[in-house]
């Protein structure tokens, strides 16, 4: 893989040099980068900068060598002729002089230099950063052959009265439209569709593996159709791909290892082929436990870019971080009959010439008769065939959620660049009158117009190059910061590198802008070469800002800045609302972990298994609570609020869906859920006692709006308590998910709890047991005693692992985390937005203020004479200052008024990102306007104040 920056710079070199050395140089540079990367961003940026400089100067020298030899093939002996003059070198020398002059000019006016280079550099750096991210994430094609023909196929369930019962929240129309298909659908599609060339299925799950060493591992498993790898253009690095018949039920179990897993567990040994892996059964595929023969190793670069629907049924409509990388690929058993079906992701490759819309119509017609068999809800009246399939380009499923957000950020940076350009234009224009005498003098001394224009163009070039260099540095850091801080939901973010081509384009734009603006004084200056050059232009104008484009430029700057700062205000306020959202649970000090239980021995009777399981649960709680850091511990069979994991739900004709969990006594204590009425669970609520349930507030409000709920008996369980509601499912921060949080906060799903010991297995009256189906999961929750500092609790974590191992060494502990961390992770996305927006807003305000300051400082320095006259005539310093400040304030108000219109428009674009904040939020608007007005007034006040404090006699004498 070659580095883009180096590849680009190599193009500067003579061809024979490139052909001979480029591959080696790329390799060396790659290794250097790798060595540096460990030392962090600045080290890498420094290496890049040094290499870029060396490469550029080297290229010039190399070409000179070629010119000297006269033999492009190289190999000519003897010293190189240098300094040979010639037209080219003469010109170069002239340019060198101009560059020196320009640099000297910049050094002489440090305020101008810092303001111009700084603002332009910030703009270039910002746009390059965001554009590099957008390019790396959105614009690069997917890493699969014919990626534009790859689509995801979903079943459209909007036509059904009853949503699938497996959902714990009321599904949105969008998620119903993207329900996962089942193997039956896939097989029918493969057999009957003409628009689809080939299709594959995928389902993610996990399996426990018993290693030879006796330890257990939890492995992420992709259950796939035999052709997934070949459909995505991957050939095994070792061994063979799956065979077509390996999806048929009852075949010998085989497995393909991921490249990483092969390396970490088998040390990359080719002898891994033919070895066996002992996997536990799981309920995510119908495979029983057994020995799987390794037949192949997937290539190192093979990965499936998982989208928000990546995990199939239990994740429909939910947004979250991508699942962990797959360790093993195994062929799914596909049963050609209804029942025992699992939801899968279907990836199809369309035949050339067919569009997703055509495919959707055709596949819809194929699925229509089948839907009626497998969907208990039955079709809605008037449902058409087209309703029954949704076909979405694979690219869209991946990038739709992030596209809008990235494009908005890009737009924001473009505004910053615009602002920076306006600023520099403004600064240059302000400088123009002052330079007119200089140019007039030089013209009088015999400099031709071309010479003057060349000098000005060189100045612009030097300015732009310095700004571009600063921009490159900032972009290098910026990209690394975004990669490091960016939320994991953005696919491919970690692969993003700063894009040097973009940097060149931004630098070029800035150059164009500075040249155009820079030439104005040259043209004016040389045209009026013989006009009197004494006396700065514009003296005697009535107003500081009148009669020039400067007022308009200042107003424009403030308008643009207001759009950015007000947007930042909206996002910041939205995040602060999200952060204080009442979740219904107290998260601080809660540690949660998932446990994968060993598979039950099928020869042990069910009742006895249940006893074993209950003993495991209570032994574990006892051991956990023995830890001095743990105040209380509880177990639950489903994921607690805020965490991702399996949930089971019961559907109810009155309530639609409701969330169900079986928990131990202290569950409510641990999570800080207040018991409102009745009693909690106690250890006497075992299988032989009266079966009881605890319900949530919302449940009561919906089922018993007028009666007392306590004591009611439902399905042979008595309601004994009522607890507070909590947010029903985990919430994540994707764009749509903010909408989802809003919905979740408003409509809290009714919740229902039973004692762990009274949990019944689904569809039967017998005791339920998470270990029964094999590889079952439970959650352990702990409230820590106050003195444990969370976040640095690795010791506690290892004690938890030890406690579990002491109860049953076969149980696997994973995903230990604090609830606070889970909430933080969720808030990270909107927080990241807000941070980015604040950065842009701050940058914009700073650039605008710098612009006002720069322009005013310049104007004032030119009009110290006028100020002196006014004061000599009796004006107070205060009057002069307030006159100027009033004028600036008037211009600023006009600009801000325009900005408010822009900010309102921007607010509408941001609406879907906002939580409990209106896009027209007056606080954000007024706050941003006040901030900018203050900045403008202060920026104007400082230079005028200084001018007015000078003794008028001095200024007049100086004239």
């Amino acid at each position, binding site marked *: 893989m070659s580095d883009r920056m*180096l590849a680009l*710079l190599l193009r500067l070199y003579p061809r024979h*040099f490139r052909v*001979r*050395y480029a*591959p*080696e*140089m*790329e*390799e*060396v*540079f790659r*290794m*250097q980068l790798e060595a540096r990367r460990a030392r962090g961003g600045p080290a890498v940026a420094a290496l890049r900068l*040094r*290499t870029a*400089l*060396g*490469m550029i*100067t*080297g*290229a010039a*020298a*190399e070409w*000179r*060598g070629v010119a000297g030899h006269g033999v492009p093939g*190289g*190999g*000519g*002996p*003897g*010293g*190189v002729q*240098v*300094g040979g003059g010639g037209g080219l*070198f003469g010109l170069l020398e002239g340019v060198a002089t101009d560059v020196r002059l320009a640099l000297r000019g910049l050094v002489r006016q440090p305020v101008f230099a810092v303001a111009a280079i700084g603002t332009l550099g910030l703009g270039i750096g910002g746009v390059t950063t965001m554009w590099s991210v957008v390019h790396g994430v959105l614009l690069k094609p997917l890493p699969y052959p014919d990626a534009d023909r790859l689509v995801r196929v979903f079943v459209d369930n909007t036509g059904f009265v009853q949503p699938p019962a497996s959902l714990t929240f009321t599904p949105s129309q969008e998620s119903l439209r993207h329900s996962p298909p089942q193997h039956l659908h896939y097989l029918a599609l493969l057999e009957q569709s003409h628009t689809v060339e080939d299709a594959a299925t995928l389902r993610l799950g996990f399996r426990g593996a018993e290693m030879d060493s006796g330890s257990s591992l939890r492995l992420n498993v992709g259950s796939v159709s035999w052709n997934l790898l070949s459909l995505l253009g991957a050939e095994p690095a070792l061994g063979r791909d799956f065979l077509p018949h390996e999806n048929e039920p009852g075949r010998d179990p085989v497995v393909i290892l991921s490249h990483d897993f092969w390396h970490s567990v088998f040390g990359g040994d080719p002898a891994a082929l033919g070895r066996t892996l002992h996997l536990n059964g799981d309920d995510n595929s119908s495979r029983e436990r057994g020995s799987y023969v390794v037949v192949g190793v997937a290539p190192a670069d093979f990965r499936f870019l998982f989208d928000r629907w990546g995990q199939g049924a239990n994740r429909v409509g939910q947004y979250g971080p991508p699942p962990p990388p797959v360790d093993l690929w195994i062929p799914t058993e596909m049963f050609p009959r209804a029942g025992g079906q699992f939801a899968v992701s279907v990836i199809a490759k369309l035949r050339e010439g067919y569009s997703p819309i055509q495919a959707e119509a055709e596949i819809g017609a194929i699925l229509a008769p089948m839907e009626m068999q497998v969907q208990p809800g039955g079709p809605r009246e008037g449902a058409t065939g087209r309703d029954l399939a949704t076909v979405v380009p694979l690219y869209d499923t991946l990038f739709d959620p992030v596209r809008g957000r990235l494009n908005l950020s890009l737009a924001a940076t473009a505004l910053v660049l615009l602002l920076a350009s306006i600023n520099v234009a403004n600064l240059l224009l302000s400088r123009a009158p002052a330079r007119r005498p200089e140019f007039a003098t030089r013209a009088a001394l015999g400099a031709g117009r071309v010479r003057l224009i060349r000098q000005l163009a060189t100045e612009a070039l030097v300015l732009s190059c310095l700004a571009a260099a600063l921009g490159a540095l900032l972009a290098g850091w910026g990209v690394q910061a975004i990669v490091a801080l960016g939320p994991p939901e953005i696919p491919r973010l970690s692969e993003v590198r700063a894009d040097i081509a973009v940097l060149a384009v931004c630098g070029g734009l800035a150059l164009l802008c500075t040249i155009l603006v820079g030439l104005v004084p040259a043209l004016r200056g040389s045209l009026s070469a013989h006009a009197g050059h004494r006396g700065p232009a514009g003296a005697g104008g009535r107003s500081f800002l009148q009669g020039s484009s400067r007022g308009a430029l200042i107003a424009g700057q403030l308008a643009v800045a207001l759009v950015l700062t007000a947007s930042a205000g909206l996002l910041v306020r939205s995040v602060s609302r999200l952060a204080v959202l009442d979740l219904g649970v107290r998260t601080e000090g809660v540690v949660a972990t998932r446990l994968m239980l060993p598979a039950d021995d099928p020869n042990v009777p069910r009742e006895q298994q249940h006893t074993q399981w209950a003993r495991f649960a209570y032994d574990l709680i006892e051991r956990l609570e023995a830890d001095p850091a743990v105040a209380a511990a509880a177990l639950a069979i489903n994921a607690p609020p805020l965490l991702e994991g399996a949930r089971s739900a019961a559907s109810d004709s009155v309530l639609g869906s409701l969330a169900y969990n079986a928990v131990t006594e202290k569950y409510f204590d641990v999570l800080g859920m207040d018991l409102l009425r009745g009693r909690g669970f106690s250890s006497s609520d075992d299988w032989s006692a009266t079966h009881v349930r605890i319900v949530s507030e919302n449940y009561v409000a919906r089922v018993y709006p007028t009666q007392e709920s306590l004591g009611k008996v439902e399905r042979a369980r008595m309601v004994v308590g009522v607890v507070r509601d909590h947010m029903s499912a985990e919430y994540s921060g994707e764009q749509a998910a903010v909408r989802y949080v809003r919905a979740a906060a408003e409509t809290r799903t009714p919740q229902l709890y039973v004692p762990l010991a009274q949990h019944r297995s689904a569809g039967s009256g017998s005791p339920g047991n998470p270990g029964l189906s094999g590889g079952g999961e439970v959650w352990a929750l702990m409230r820590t005693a106050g003195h444990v500092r969370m976040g640095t609790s690795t010791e506690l974590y290892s004690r938890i692992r030890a406690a579990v191992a002491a109860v049953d060494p076969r149980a696997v502990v994973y995903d230990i985390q604090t609830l606070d961390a889970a909430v933080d992770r969720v808030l990270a996305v909107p927080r990241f937005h807000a941070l980015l927006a604040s950065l842009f807003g701050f940058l914009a305000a700073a650039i605008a203020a710098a612009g006002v300051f720069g322009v005013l400082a310049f104007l004032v320095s030119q009009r110290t004479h006028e100020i002196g006259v006014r004061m000599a005539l009796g004006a107070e310093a205060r009057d002069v200052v307030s006159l100027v400040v009033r004028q600036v304030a008037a211009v600023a108000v006009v600009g801000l008024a325009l900005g408010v219109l822009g900010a309102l428009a921007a607010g509408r674009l941001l609406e879907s990102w906002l939580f409990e904040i209106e896009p027209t939020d007056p606080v954000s608007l007024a706050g941003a306007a006040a901030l900018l007005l203050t900045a403008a007034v202060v920026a104007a006040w400082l230079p005028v104040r200084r001018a007015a404090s000078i003794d008028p006699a001095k200024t007049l004498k100086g004239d």
Partner: protein
Amino acid sequence: LTNRDRSPSPAGDPTRHLPLRPVEINVLLSLCDGPRHGYGIMQDALERTGEDVIPDVGTLYRALRRMVEAGLIEPSEGGGERRNEYRITPLGRGVAEAESRRLEKLVWAARNSGLLGQEG
């Protein structure tokens, strides 16, 4: 535009190649112990002289190009498709020795003039 960018002469007299540039003497010193590829030379220079003076990849390869043309070093097989190794030629060894002697004299002179302090 200075006199720095001249290629070393391929003629037999090592002293005709003197003085060498820092990058050139660094390359020769690295290759004295045996063939190396570009990154190896760079690592070697890093250990010898520290980070801030090692050449960037462009400077290094331009030096390698010049030195191959001047016959001080030659590419050798091995190291794989992308990794060409370089080995020192007898002439290169002679040049390295000559340059080292030149530098030694220089250091001696510096010492004599009291620049580095007197040594016993």
